[in-house]
Structures are given as structure tokens and as C-alpha cells.
């Protein structure tokens, strides 16, 4: 378990750093999918294999493809200088992020987790399904949350279509021009 944890932690963190420091945008997107795969491995270790399947389907599959489409429409995949991809707040941003990470890690480390014991996750898919539908005791709120998220997804899809649609007869699709 510790070997798998170390491998997955290295994969997640190195890929996450690769997203930030990679000079090629397409490489950033592929590093991001590697990081999501590592998180899916963590979900398997944490007794949530069905959530790991969701993670692979939605993040590694769908979100990465959508982001690659966005890259394809908006820019040429080429290596750029760090001057042009990083704004002027490089070191200030590094200090802020390192401070946030160190503070969170410190707070989580000094907390007393002695009562925590692994193995409470919904390992069975049927258990997760009952939780999501609000049938099992203690999860009644999910009956509402599930519907709210469904409506939110519908609204977001309609909004994405409306925002990205070209007005009929006005302008050209400039992403295709060059």
C-alpha cells in the first residue's frame, strides 16, 4: 500500500507541476490528464472504485478532450518562452501558493486523527447508488442535491451553446482563418 501510495503521489504531484511549468499548452493538457489518473488511483485505494470509474470517464476522457478542443480553436500548439506564458507575478504567486500549501499541510498534520480508521467508504456500487438517491439513512439531502445538479448541468449546457454560438450572418469564424 505504501509503495502504491508513493507512486501515485509522485505521479499526481509531478504531473500537476508539469501543468504549470510546461511551455506547450498541449503538454499541459496531457499532464493534467496524468494527474487526474493518479487521483483515480487514490480513489481506488480509498474504497471508492466506482468514483474512480467516474473520474476516468469524466475527467480523463471528457474534460481533457473538451480542453484539447479549446486549445485547438484558440491557438497553435507551439513552444513559447517563459516570458510570454508567465505574467509578472511569478515569484509573488509562488510565495503565496507555497504559503497556502504549507499552512494547509501544517494544520492537517497537527490535527489529532487518532479516531480515524480506514475502510468506511462505500466499496459497493449499490451502496453508493442508494446514497446518491437519498434512500439510505443519513443521506436524505441527496434526493434534493441530485435534482439540483441535474438542472444545473442542463442550464450549463444551454448556456455553453448560447455563449459560444456565432450570430447568424455576422463576422467569420476567426479560429479557422489561419
Amino acid at each position: 500500500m505504501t509503495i502504491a501510495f508513493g507512486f501515485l503521489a509522485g505521479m499526481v504531484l509531478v504531473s500537476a507541476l508539469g501543468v504549470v511549468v510546461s511551455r506547450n499548452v498541449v503538454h499541459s493538457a496531457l499532464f493534467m490528464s496524468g494527474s487526474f489518473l493518479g487521483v483515480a488511483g487514490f480513489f481506488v485505494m480509498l474504497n471508492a472504485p466506482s468514483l474512480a470509474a467516474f473520474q476516468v470517464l469524466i475527467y480523463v476522457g471528457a474534460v481533457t478532450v473538451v480542453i484539447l478542443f479549446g486549445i485547438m480553436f484558440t491557438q497553435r500548439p507551439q513552444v513559447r518562452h517563459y516570458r510570454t506564458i508567465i505574467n509578472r507575478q511569478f515569484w509573488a504567486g509562488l510565495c503565496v501558493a507555497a504559503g497556502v500549501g504549507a499552512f494547509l499541510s501544517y494544520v492537517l498534520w497537527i490535527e489529532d486523527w487518532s479516531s480515524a480508521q480506514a475502510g468506511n467508504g462505500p466499496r459497493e456500487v449499490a451502496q453508493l447508488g442508494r446514497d446518491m438517491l437519498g434512500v439510505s439513512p443519513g443521506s436524505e439531502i441527496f434526493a434534493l442535491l441530485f435534482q439540483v445538479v441535474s438542472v444545473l448541468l442542463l442550464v450549463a449546457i444551454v448556456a455553453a451553446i448560447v455563449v459560444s454560438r456565432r450570430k447568424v450572418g455576422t463576422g467569420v469564424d476567426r479560429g479557422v482563418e489561419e
Partner: protein
Amino acid sequence: MPAQAQSVLDALLASPPLQAYLIVGAIMFAIGAWGALVRRNAVVIFMCVELMINGVNLTLVAFADFLPNAGGLGVGYAVLVIAIAAAEIAVGLAIVLAVFRSRRTVNVDEVTSMRG
């Protein structure tokens, strides 16, 4: 097998504590925040926001597995978070496409038409 090798093997086979997962999630959140602060490309900023969301998701699922009174419900919340993140990325990329059509750039520090 000597006792030292046995203890090393036991340490390698033991399951990691809760803090290990939490700290990986916190560092992942910090890396995503760094990228969202320093990169100029709007698409890369979206990727970094997704990294932050994944760090928080990892924390949620770790709590759901380790805390006895959570009842595993954190996994259900993680599913909801994934759905909301997917909605966010769809709307966000649509906005990026619309901005690119009118401004010919996706660098967030060059889109300054609303600056007072």
C-alpha cells in the same frame, strides 16, 4: 528473515495514514493555485482550477473513507463536485471561445476592456 528487514517490509505493506492523503490534496491545491495565479493563458488557468478541484475532491474522499461518522457520504458529494466542475469547464471554455472571436487573444491580461 532478519528483524530489520521484516520491519521495513511491514512499513512498506502498511496502509498510509489519513494525513498522507490530506497533505497530497493540500499540495495539489497549492500547485493549482500557483498556476492559476501566474499563467496568462485562460485555458491553462482552467486546467489549474480543475487541479484545485481535484485536490479538494481527494480530501473529501479521504475523509469519507477514514472518519467513522461520515458514513461514506463524502463520495456522493465528490460525484456532485465532479458534475459541477464539468458544467464549469463547459461554460468557461464557451466564454474563452467567445472572447477569442472578438479579441483574437486568450491571454487574460490583454482582455482589459472592462478596466475602469
